[in-house]
């Protein structure tokens, strides 16, 4: 069966049309980024860039989290979904690269450079920020890869000789033989470590790259809000990815309706948690009414020009999915679910813009969102697709569901 799998992959994941599509969209994205950059408001370009960078990095980080959690909680039902989830982690190196590029726009990205910070300068200064965030990304992604290294050791078929990566990995594994149990135990350990790092470092990123853009505002829950949201998005992407693989007859990947149903329930659950974490912050700030806190929230939810966008986000990413997901049948329907997820993701992408936009363009009277932002988004979609496709191309086993599991 692996042989066939190997044969099929050639055409499924990595065919010309897909290359063409992704390539084109990437070029479009790049071009529109450059156009914005060369315009009067380069910060607009960086706003879009930061938004997408955070958005897709979160998806990748959350994706791997799914696998890690399944490993730790021994959730068997999701075992066959961990493959695609891990495929998302292929975005890690790209994400890190994008992160480095981000600092080219430091003039626009960090408005606090021009503000009076007092003591805070000890935390908000470019070198310090670059150092700690770089370290953070390296640790997170490093742990991620060590975990993958263990996970794939069980998942991948050692014999197939497709590509250098495989051979390299095989050599690694064959170099020293550890007994599977200890190896599995270590895998679990690194899963735990990754989960911890996920929480800590995503919070750090949230503080440094989103919250600190308005250095006077702070909300203790913001970090947690960010990484919960990240997982919510990852689940959305995972649903789409799984559905695509599931619906493509050529791919040996199929899920029982119950598995989709469970995935749907998880998606639903995190839709609620995300909303809850939003409300927890909003309620406290609304009730306390301390200007230091309210100004930030009001600018994004109650004052023009951003207000309508806030409502859109609320409806698209919470209202609609909440009402729809109450229904049991839809959860186990891949088509509908992917559609819904796409919608939610769109909303959450807007939500990122909503958080970043007002900070980067203070006192504006028009919505800082245009066609180019959309095109840049498209570009990043292409990028992500390409990455995932190539990962699956190299490691087709990730797209194999073990029907045997569960009963």
């Amino acid at each position, binding site marked *: 069966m692996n042989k066939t799998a190997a044969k099929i992959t050639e055409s499924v994941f990595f065919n010309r049309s897909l290359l063409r599509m992704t390539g084109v969209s990437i070029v479009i994205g790049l071009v529109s980024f450059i156009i914005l950059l060369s315009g009067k408001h380069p910060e607009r370009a960086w706003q879009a860039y930061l938004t997408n960078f955070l958005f897709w990095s979160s998806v990748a980080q959350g994706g791997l989290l799914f696998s890690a959690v399944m490993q730790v909680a021994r959730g068997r039902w999701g075992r066959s979904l961990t493959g695609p989830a891990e495929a998302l982690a292929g975005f890690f190196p790209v994400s890190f690269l994008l992160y480095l590029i981000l600092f080219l726009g430091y003039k626009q990205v960090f408005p606090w450079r021009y503000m009076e910070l007092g003591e805070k300068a000890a935390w908000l200064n470019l070198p310090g920020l670059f150092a700690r965030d770089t370290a953070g990304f390296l640790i997170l992604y490093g742990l991620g890869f060590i975990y993958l290294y263990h996970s794939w050791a069980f998942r991948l078929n050692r014999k197939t000789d497709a590509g250098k990566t495989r051979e390299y990995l095989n050599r690694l594994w064959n170099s020293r033989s550890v007994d599977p149990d200890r190896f599995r135990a270590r895998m679990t350990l690194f899963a735990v470590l990754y989960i911890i790092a996920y929480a800590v470092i995503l919070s750090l990123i949230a503080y440094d790259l989103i919250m600190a853009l308005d250095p006077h505002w702070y909300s203790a829950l913001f970090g947690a809000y960010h990484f919960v949201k990240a997982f919510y998005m990852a689940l959305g992407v995972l649903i789409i990815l799984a559905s695509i693989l599931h619906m493509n007859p050529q791919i040996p990947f199929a899920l029982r309706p119950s598995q989709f149903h469970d995935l749907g329930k998880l998606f639903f659950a995190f839709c609620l948690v995300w909303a809850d974490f939003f*409300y927890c912050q*909003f*309620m406290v700030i*609304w*009730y306390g*009414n301390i200007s230091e806190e309210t100004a930030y929230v009001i600018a994004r939810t109650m004052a023009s020009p951003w207000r309508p966008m806030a409502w859109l986000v609320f409806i698209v990413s919470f209202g609609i999915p909440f009402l729809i997901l*109450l229904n049991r049948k839809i959860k186990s329907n891949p088509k509908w679910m992917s559609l819904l997820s796409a919608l939610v993701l769109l909303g959450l992408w807007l939500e990122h813009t909503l958080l970043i936009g007002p900070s980067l363009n203070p006192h504006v009277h028009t919505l800082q969102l245009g066609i180019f932002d959309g095109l840049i988004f498209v570009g990043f979609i292409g990028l992500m697709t390409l990455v995932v496709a190539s990962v699956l191309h190299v490691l087709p086993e990730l797209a194999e569901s073990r029907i045997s599991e569960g009963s």
Partner: protein
Amino acid sequence: MADDRTIMGIFSDEETTLSAVRALKETPWSIENVMSPIPSREIADELSTKPSRVGYFTLAGGIIGFFTGFALSAYTALQWQLVVSGKPIVALVPFFIVGFEFTILFAVFGNVVGLILKMKLPDYRGLADHDSRCTGACFCVVAVCPVSDEQKLLNFLKNSGADTRILS
């Protein structure tokens, strides 16, 4: 029906019960009831029972509760229209919590009501020909056959691994 016999077959485990039920369905005799110490998806599937509709009560309760919560808090606030902390008289942000708690409460009430109505409990008549083993380790299948077939059915059940009991 005087010319009917109701016979209970008591099985020691789920598998045999399951096969017995399957076999019974091939026979002309009807399965009146199956009792088990634990819920069994498989048996339910065999008997092709429809999924329960308790959920509708729950949902209804929830929706009613949500609006009751908001209505109550808005009504009480409007009686005197006292300003507190400069907050609006009808402040939806905090009232949402009231709405939420009421949603849960009423949903649960709906759930319980639905359960009572659907399960028709409390009802002690069923205990008349209830076998205590059914709540312990055993699965009981209650089948009905014409008086004529009584012996056949008894044998059938015995063969499929049950000890039997004639209820009426």
